[in-house]
């Protein structure tokens, strides 16, 4: 496609043919106010907020739907344009409840922001405002229809991206409203995105409703641990609690959306039942012990097995929920002990879900590809769990050390592994499961939201993950546990490795820094 050269606000802009004025302006950092336009959806051009002046045209044109042309001269800040913004805002605000103090969107509301720019402190509206009910839209979504500005972003999302089309517009003019058929609530797995794209506080998440004002949230950029797609997310937390998760725009990974499973995945790792003390299996069953004891026990047992039966009788199991760095440290540590056999817990498998504009991976862990590749890199080979079970049965493997970290209910499949034949089995994990109880030592590790590191998704894109909070109680980040173990083993894992892992140049990792947020 050929390039088009135009002028926007006295600036030369070169964009591919077919780009809209709004996008062209955006590409050089000129923000044209808009409601109905969303980069991930079609442009119906119905809000009239984005009007700009184009030289040679009598009327103002909607920049979201007008393609650029060679030699076009666009002005986004003339008195006429501002007057148009003011009129449009007056129009929207005349029938708006103006209930910002009790609206969850306040603070990140486009209508509120534009009110500061083009709103008026007084109203000429003397008639009665049309009031509309609060509607239950879906299991997690509530619609405050009063606040809706009829931009139809939600309707278009459900038609174009999820392809489910639960919402529609009924009635006309000031009485038009977003309609949800009683027997067809918005239950599709991408539903939460309509809350994110609603420019006002009309669509709210029931989970987040009233919990916190948005200006108190701390946002942390991370990746979604829920499936192998590892969508770029922004985790909003307050006082060390995760309150909501939103997508970050990243063309290489998730575009602009995330699925609801990922949106609420934090519930699967947090809350009751998290393991927060090291547990050691002794004569009286599992008892709490302190970290020094636990690490010393692990180091002693591993060294004993290695001395008695040789280093290759110690095996390790990496985890698709651990970061690349953690898996690498695990593998290096055990290879340096003489271990040759390593494996990787498989991620729970479901069938992938495909939508017109999104796909949810069936592999339910974020770092499957990264963990596999890292373990292969370091250990040279990777056994399947069946092979490892064989080796255990034949007595060639006497001790196993595993990373875990699965979410609640996703048990690591260690049933058929023959763990009872082992002399020592230790696992770093987040939840104690019945099956985990065959272990000699259970170490409380960190959830994906408590880690720092890198993950590689199924398409090979590397993303940085950041810790939102610290692990609960005495639980520690898995990296820290492994470092403590390495120290106790006095293995050749020293600062060099730490540096090698952490300072590995981004280019070498083909590291794709995800784009900034999508507001």
């Amino acid at each position, binding site marked *: 496609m050929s390039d088009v050269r135009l002028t926007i606000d006295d600036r030369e802009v070169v964009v591919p043919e077919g780009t809209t004025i709004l996008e062209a302006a955006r590409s050089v950092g000129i923000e044209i106010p808009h409601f109905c336009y969303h980069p991930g959806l079609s442009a119906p051009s119905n809000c009239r907020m984005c009007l700009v002046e184009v030289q040679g045209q009598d009327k103002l044109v909607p920049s979201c739907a007008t393609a650029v042309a060679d030699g076009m001269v666009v002005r986004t800040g003339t008195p006429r344009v501002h007057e148009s913004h003011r009129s449009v805002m007056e129009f929207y605000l005349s029938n708006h409840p103006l209930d910002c*103090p009790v609206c969850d969107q306040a603070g990140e509301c486009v209508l509120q922001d534009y009110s500061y720019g083009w709103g008026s402190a007084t109203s000429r509206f003397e008639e009665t405002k049309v009031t509309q009910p*609060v509607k239950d839209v879906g299991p997690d979504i509530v619609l405050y229809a009063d606040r809706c500005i009829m931009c139809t972003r939600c309707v278009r999302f459900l038609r174009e991206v999820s392809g489910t089309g639960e919402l529609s517009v009924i009635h006309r003019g000031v009485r038009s409203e977003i309609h949800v058929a009683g027997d067809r609530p918005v239950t599709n797995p991408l539903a939460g995105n309509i809350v994110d794209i609603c420019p006002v506080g009309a669509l709210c998440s029931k989970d987040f409703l*009233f919990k916190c004002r948005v*200006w108190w949230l701390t946002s942390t950029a991370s990746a979604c641990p829920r499936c192998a797609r590892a969508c770029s997310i922004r985790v909003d937390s307050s006082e060390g609690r995760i309150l909501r998760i939103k997508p970050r725009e990243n063309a290489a990974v998730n575009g602009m959306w995330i699925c609801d499973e990922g949106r609420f995945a934090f519930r699967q790792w947090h809350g009751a039942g998290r393991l927060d003390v090291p547990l050691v299996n002794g004569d009286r069953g599992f008892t709490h012990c302190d970290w020094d004891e636990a690490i010393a026990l692990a180091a002693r047992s591993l060294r004993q097995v290695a001395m008695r039966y040789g280093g290759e009788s110690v095996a390790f199991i990496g985890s698709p929920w651990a970061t690349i760095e953690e898996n690498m440290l695990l593998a290096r540590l055990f290879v340096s002990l003489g271990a040759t056999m390593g494996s990787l817990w498989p991620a729970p498998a479901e069938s992938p879900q495909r939508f017109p504009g999104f796909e949810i991976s069936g592999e339910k862990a974020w770092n499957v590809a990264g963990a596999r590749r890292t373990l292969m890199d370091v250990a040279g080979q990777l056994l399947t769990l069946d092979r490892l079970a064989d080796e255990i049965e034949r007595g060639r493997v006497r001790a196993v050390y595993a990373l875990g970290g699965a979410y609640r209910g996703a048990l690591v499949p260690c049933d058929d592994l023959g763990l009872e034949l082992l002399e020592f089995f230790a696992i770093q994990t987040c939840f104690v499961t019945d099956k985990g109880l065959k272990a000699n030592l259970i170490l409380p590790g960190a959830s994906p939201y408590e880690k720092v590191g890198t993950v590689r998704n199924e398409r090979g894109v590397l993303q940085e993950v950041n810790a939102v909070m610290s692990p609960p109680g005495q639980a520690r980040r898995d990296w820290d546990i492994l470092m403590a173990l390495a120290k106790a083993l006095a293995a050749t894992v020293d600062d060099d490795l730490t540096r090698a892992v952490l300072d590995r140049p981004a280019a070498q990792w083909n590291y794709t820094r995800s784009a900034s947020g999508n507001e």
Partner: protein
Amino acid sequence: MTHLPGPIFNAPGRATADRGLPTPAYDTPRPGPQKEKRLSARPTFFQRLIVPGLLRTWWSGVRHIWQKKLTVQWPEQVREVSDNYRGVHRLNKDDRGRMKCVACFLCQTACPANCIRIEAGPSPWPDRPKYAVRFTIDELRCVFCGMCEEACPEDAIELTRIYSLVGTRRDEMLFDKEQLLTMYDLTRDEKHPLRW
């Protein structure tokens, strides 16, 4: 002309003089003619004599015997505070007796002392989506600046003229919703023309 800094409590206040109460006013100039005095770094020979000095000290005590007493004999004597005094908070109720607060968190946001803590929940009344399920103010931490009052869009939080605030434990000073609503019942009939 140089004014020597006089004692602070030096005259009956204007604002409350009609109540006959010895309320100090901080800004009233010392009554009577002011004698101009030279301030010098070195005391004069006379000032350095010890016995006259002692006598002067003694006299400055004794002459107060005949002066107006300024000490407020709390608690028998209650000190009237000005109309816009900012004391303990109250949570206002509407004419149906429901708390006015809509849990917008604006007071909590405005508070510079970080002493308000609200938990919002769905409201039991149809006229507002949410209300404060819990509302706690740490009166010990509060600096009584009145910003919360200023920020509130519903006139739901106000500072009363109540200043006698006594507790034996810190957590007694965490006023919860019920206590704050009770403060409203206690002060319902007071009118504070300057701020309310």
